[in-house]
């Protein structure tokens, strides 16, 4: 009985894999836009790319950089930072979306 159930579960898993993979392949080849929306519907709740300033855009930047203000010689940027509070430095090179 147990072996029979396990065999049914394995068959179910494989048939599910075949079905899902076929749907994904069809969507990719025939109608990418429609396929993506069906896929998105199954994906759950989405975060979308947003209108916020590009995240990470200030990596390696600084109010002072290139303006001489960061030189220890004049202490011009003491306590300042263009990134502070904007958080743009957390990851590399790409825009992080916000929640909707």
């Amino acid at each position: 009985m147990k072996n029979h159930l396990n065999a049914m579960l394995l068959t179910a898993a494989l048939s599910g894999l075949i079905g899902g993979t076929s749907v994904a392949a069809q969507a990719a080849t025939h109608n990418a836009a429609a396929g993506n929306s069906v896929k998105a519907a199954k994906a759950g709740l989405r975060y979308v790319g947003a209108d916020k300033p590009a995240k990470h855009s200030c990596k390696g930047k600084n109010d002072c950089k290139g303006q001489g203000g960061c030189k220890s010689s004049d202490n011009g940027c003491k306590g300042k930072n263009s990134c502070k509070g904007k958080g743009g430095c957390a990851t590399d090179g790409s825009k992080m979306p916000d929640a909707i």
Partner: protein
Amino acid sequence: MNLQPMSLADLQREMAAAVMMPLTADEDMRAQAPDGRAMSEVAASFIAPNSRLTAFERLEIYNRQYWYRVMGALAEDFPALRTVLGRSRFEALSIAYLTAHPSRSFSLRNLGSELSAWLADNPHFTGRRHLLALDVARIEWAFVEAFDSAERTPLTLDQIATLDADSRLALQPHVQLICLNYPADDLVLALHDGEKRQASEAGVKHDDSPEAPARLPKLRRRPTWVAAHRVDLAVYYRRLQPEEFVTLTSIREGQPLAEAIQSGFADSRIPAARWPQLVREWFATWAELGWICAPDLDALIKT
């Protein structure tokens, strides 16, 4: 001038230790190094003063900038956690965490990688909202991982045709499985949404988050299973059934396919008659989302 000759490696170590040393409550550089040396002497050993600034003051600029930058980066990756705890508690937590886990990577992206584990061991930083804070931190870190972790080629029909009970599969690296104490995924989405609206209404977002923890809707503690993952460069949160979560976890751990499925139902209250239908639906959805891939093509494709 007390400048002393030292190797480049020693100079870098000395500078890094000084720059990464926590600031005082007034955001100044500390007067004493952890080893007891006066920081004025440490600074003078490798930095020359100028006409306006002492060596200490010149080093202090870098010490401050390091902390402003890493604190800002951490706050950016955990905005909901900051809202749940309030700004002052979040800042205290950030300083303690970043002291225990200073930046070690070329990228600030990895700064929060240990935060959830560290929070679990340091509940006094989160107070009475500890379990909720832990959930929120896990969700927000899962977002970072799902956002930029690798994406591999999903299983093909040819590969599926070779599978049997003993086959071992793998999950997409960007699929993040999270087990929560509360249904905190909805809360995090709502908090992020609120923050986004605030930012767009204000035009430019400033660091004006409230000092005190936010008033939150009453959440009932309820185990919740979630997968954070990426579809077409967007991150999604998908609720999972507990059996589904365990099966996915077992697949990720490398259990043979049949065992992974059985482990999913080990403690299940779902009648066995419904299991095959559920398994078919799960695997179809996972395949459609591209979650399942091969751990090792050579091992999977039997010749």
